[in-house]
């Protein structure tokens, strides 16, 4: 088995799964019905995307495991998602900013992935890119609307920036797996991606009258299995049924 390809695939699968799960927590709690539906729609897209990734991971691994088993029977330190996506929903501003930071990554990521020399990754890229385009439009519009909105909404966006900005860079900072994936021609050049993503973020922040926090400290570790405390709680929810009743189907 190509261990690096497997790890690379898991990293992206885990990002989609964990953010999809976080957004699903909003179901029935959105600020207005339309936005409740928007968040659950995006959640559904992310869960669909993670399934393509996990199915591929399972086939690379070749041990006959299903996508569900890969999700249900790994512990937090085996998860490879970035720290950003496991951060709590907070208020609507925090959810929006977390989504925008992720969407600006994923829309550019998938666009480049279409040219991967791995056919399956290229196919996942082409399919997901279309969906990511809607997501970034939605989250970008909301960053502007809240940032350039009322005093209250602007304050909340500033607080969200303060909280989440230190998690923004991990997505584009290549770990060893991603470096090798790029060298081997199936992964994405994160340096090129970073340039495009940063430009988009800046463009939206300016329109939203928001500023990048002065501190340049950036958290990292998720891609290598070192997580914040939040991931364990997410997995407790997500994995409960299969842990309690392994192999259960309905």
């Amino acid at each position, binding site marked *: 088995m190509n261990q690096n390809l497997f790890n690379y695939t898991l990293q992206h699968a885990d990002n989609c799964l964990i953010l999809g799960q976080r957004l699903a927590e909003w179901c029935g709690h959105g600020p207005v019905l339309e936005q409740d*539906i928007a968040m659950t729609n995006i959640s559904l897209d992310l869960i669909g995307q993670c399934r393509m990734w996990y199915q591929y991971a399972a086939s690379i691994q070749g041990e006959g495991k299903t996508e569900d088993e890969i999700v249900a029977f790994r512990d937090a330190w085996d998860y490879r998602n970035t720290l950003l996506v496991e951060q709590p929903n907070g208020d609507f501003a925090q959810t929006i900013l977390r989504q925008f930071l992720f969407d600006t990554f994923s829309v550019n990521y998938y666009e480049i992935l279409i040219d991967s020399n791995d056919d399956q990754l290229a196919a996942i890229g082409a399919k997901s890119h279309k969906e990511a385009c809607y997501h970034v439009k*939605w989250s970008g519009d909301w960053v502007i609307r809240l940032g350039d909105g009322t005093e209250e909404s602007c304050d909340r966006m500033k607080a969200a920036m303060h909280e989440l900005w230190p998690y923004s860079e991990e997505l584009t900072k290549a770990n060893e797996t991603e470096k090798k994936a790029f060298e081997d021609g199936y992964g994405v050049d994160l340096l090129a991606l970073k340039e495009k993503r940063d430009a988009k973020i800046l463009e939206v922040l300016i329109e939203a009258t928001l500023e990048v926090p002065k501190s340049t400290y950036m958290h990292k570790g998720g891609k290598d299995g070192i997580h914040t405390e939040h991931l364990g709680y997410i997995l407790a929810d997500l994995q409960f049924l299969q842990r309690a009743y392994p192999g259960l189907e309905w």
Partner: protein
Amino acid sequence: MASIKTISKKYVHDLLEQVTDPEIPVIAITDLGIVRDVLITDNFVEVIITSTYSGCPAMIEIEKNIHHVLKKEGIDKFKITTILSPAWTTEWITEKGNQRLKEYGIAPPNPTNPKNIECPQCGSKNTQLLSEFGSTACKSLRKCKDCLEPFDYFKCH
């Protein structure tokens, strides 16, 4: 029940017209563009399908229904293969499919002028977007400013 001799590509394709999208039951999967091909080798049938959006929950139901329809017609040797590439696009929805959507009250995708969507109820073009995301992943929610009714619009994808 079909005898083995009668299994042709067209025959299977016609059978698949009986399978509809469970979330939009007026449109056949063949008109929705998700049936990509039917291959027949030595009377073994392979139906190749693709999902609309990656998370579309209707796919499981659609697969079951394809299974059911083929079995009912006595086709036992078959498999259903889901492919990812090329990615599904609304351009694959047939003219008939678009017509059925409209009759059902869903404005069909308008690739030439996505900002100018006609109300499926009264035909007015004076409509506005309420939300990019509607009752399913493939639709957005709009409102007609003349008849004041909300309606679904099938997004260009």
